[in-house]
């Protein structure tokens, strides 16, 4: 678990710092960015395993940040946070490849669980990518291993109402 890095992008400093401290308590190396622009600067250096990003940020929005991240890293799990009650943002975010979607106020435990799952997912994808590359190199048939959808992927992107918040997961 150690060595995993999380980037939290939120202009709510108290939340961001609390989340950072909580995740740090659970062995994550966490960093905070107050805006999308700052987050992009940090990404290079930090190489995070998981990104938490608020949908609404000063300047660049969380959705735009997600798009920018997808430009250079198609697999980095990005989990969107939102204070809106609506799910429109969630739908868009998941369509754009967000790993999941959490409504504020968030339970820090839940945040940690999501980070764990996202990290695992990323590891699996990295492994898959590694084996695919090796298979290609060893056998020389690039076409032998086909493209397959990620194994742990939110299949419906369904977002439960706050009543079900504690059971929040992909289903």
């Amino acid at each position, binding site marked *: 678990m150690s060595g995993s890095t999380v980037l939290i992008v939120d202009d709510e400093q108290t939340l961001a710092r609390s989340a950072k401290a*909580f995740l740090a308590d659970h062995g994550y190396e966490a960093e905070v960015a107050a805006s999308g622009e700052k987050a992009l600067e940090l990404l290079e250096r930090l190489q995070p395993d998981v990104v938490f990003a608020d949908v*609404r940020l000063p300047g660049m929005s969380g959705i735009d940040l997600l798009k920018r991240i997808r430009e250079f890293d198609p697999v980095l799990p990005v989990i969107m*946070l939102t204070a*809106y009650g609506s799910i429109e943002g969630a*739908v868009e975010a998941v369509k754009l490849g967000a790993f999941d979607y959490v409504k504020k*106020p*968030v339970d*820090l435990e839940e945040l940690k669980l999501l980070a764990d799952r996202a990290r695992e997912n990323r590891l699996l994808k990295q492994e898959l990518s590694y084996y695919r590359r090796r298979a290609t190199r060893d056998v020389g048939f690039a076409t032998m291993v086909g493209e397959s959808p990620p194994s742990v992927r939110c299949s419906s992107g369904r977002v439960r109402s706050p009543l079900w918040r504690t059971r929040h997961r992909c289903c």
Partner: protein
Amino acid sequence: MTLQRKLLLGFSLMVVPALLVGVQAIRTNGLVRGTLESLGERLARSRTYAEVEDAMFNQTQVIWRYLSGDPAAKKEFPLTEQVVAFWLDRWTAGLPPDELKLADGVRGIEKDIRAVAGRVFKLHDAGRHDAAAVLARQELVERLQPALAEVNREIYRRAREFSVQAAFVQVAGIVDAERRVLWGIVALALAAGLLASWLISRSLARPLNELRHAMAVVGAGDLDHAIEPRSSDEIGELARAFAQMTERLRQSRAQLVQSEKLASIGQMAAGVAHGLRNPLASLRAAAQLAQRRVEGPAGAAREQLNAIIEQVDRLDQRIAHLLTFSRPAPFRPLLESVQTLVDGALSGFAELLRQHRVELGVTVPPTLREIRVDPMRLEQALTEIISNALDAMSNGGRLEIAAQSQIGDGGADGVLLEIADSGSGIPAEILPNLCEPFFTTRPEGTGLGLAIAKRYVEETGGRLDIASRIGHGTTVRIWLPIASGDAAPTPVRSLV
């Protein structure tokens, strides 16, 4: 009476005077014709009498011819007698009784002529020609002819007087009578026409005026103005149609006001939700972190932090409630059994029922057909209602949930779901406001529970009514339409 009948009656009344005039004209015509006929008869009788006179003159001529030496004349005389008798009979046959005396006079003269003729013939046959001529002159020329002339004058005078004059008088009388009757008809027609027109125009114009007035009032925006259709005719129907239109307008205006209200609530809610949830998120995260890091024995501080987190979650629920109300998720109807819905709604209440010491009675007949609703929403509606019922029974009581088939207002099959509590009841004056958004009697309530329930029931095509008696409890009746066989639930596009 319908407008058509009123108009028919009015026009019939206009025709009546014309009819009366026609009848009077026909009657007068009959009378005049009768008078003319009797005049004709009298004139004919005068002509007959002229024949009598002529025949009698011939008789005397025959006598003179015999005296002047024509022997055939004596034989002709009986023939002239027959001719005179024939015309006399014809004349007297049609004679009125008062003129019979004149006829007797004529007959007497004729008899005398015959007697004189007999004597004259006898004298002449005896060779006494001079004596016969003298007798004839004395009797015929000097006595009988003047007497006949006298009678003739009298007869012609009477004929003049009694035929032409009487006819004139009679016709004058008829014309006078006709004039009187016509004046009567004119007066009657005027009176009846005026009265009938007044009655009909009043019965037409008054409701029209009232309707026009009502339309002006409603047109000015007062949709609550009462419109009472009083007549049972087409105008009454118009008034009823207008009243219905006004009612529908009133309802749609109320709906419009409601939806405007909801739209503004929606806008506000979204802003408030965002504005509140960010600080709440910080607050909760900070509290959660602090709780984790609290040093020492698990004591008071941890408990306080827990309370903070609980309150944050409660606030968040409130915000969620507000958002649910103002911006509900898309409606996704499915076929669902009433039992499943009731069970689903009750599943979260077991502990609360026990705490409030509330007995629960559920009666859902297994034969009840499925209804087509959005199960999540209807469950929430039931949850809100049950939650309210429990709040009303803080000191225990009984909660009855009963379902049964019932035909709805429009004749559609449906299910009536009754949720009755034995709580304190709701005052009648606030009953109409219960489903208004933000109306609440509890300090901690959002005032949205019943508004949400009502909306969820109504969007399914159902109805929600609340009846309550102070001290006896409250009954919420929900009528929901049964899914008809062919109307399969519309597939709602998946959100993702």
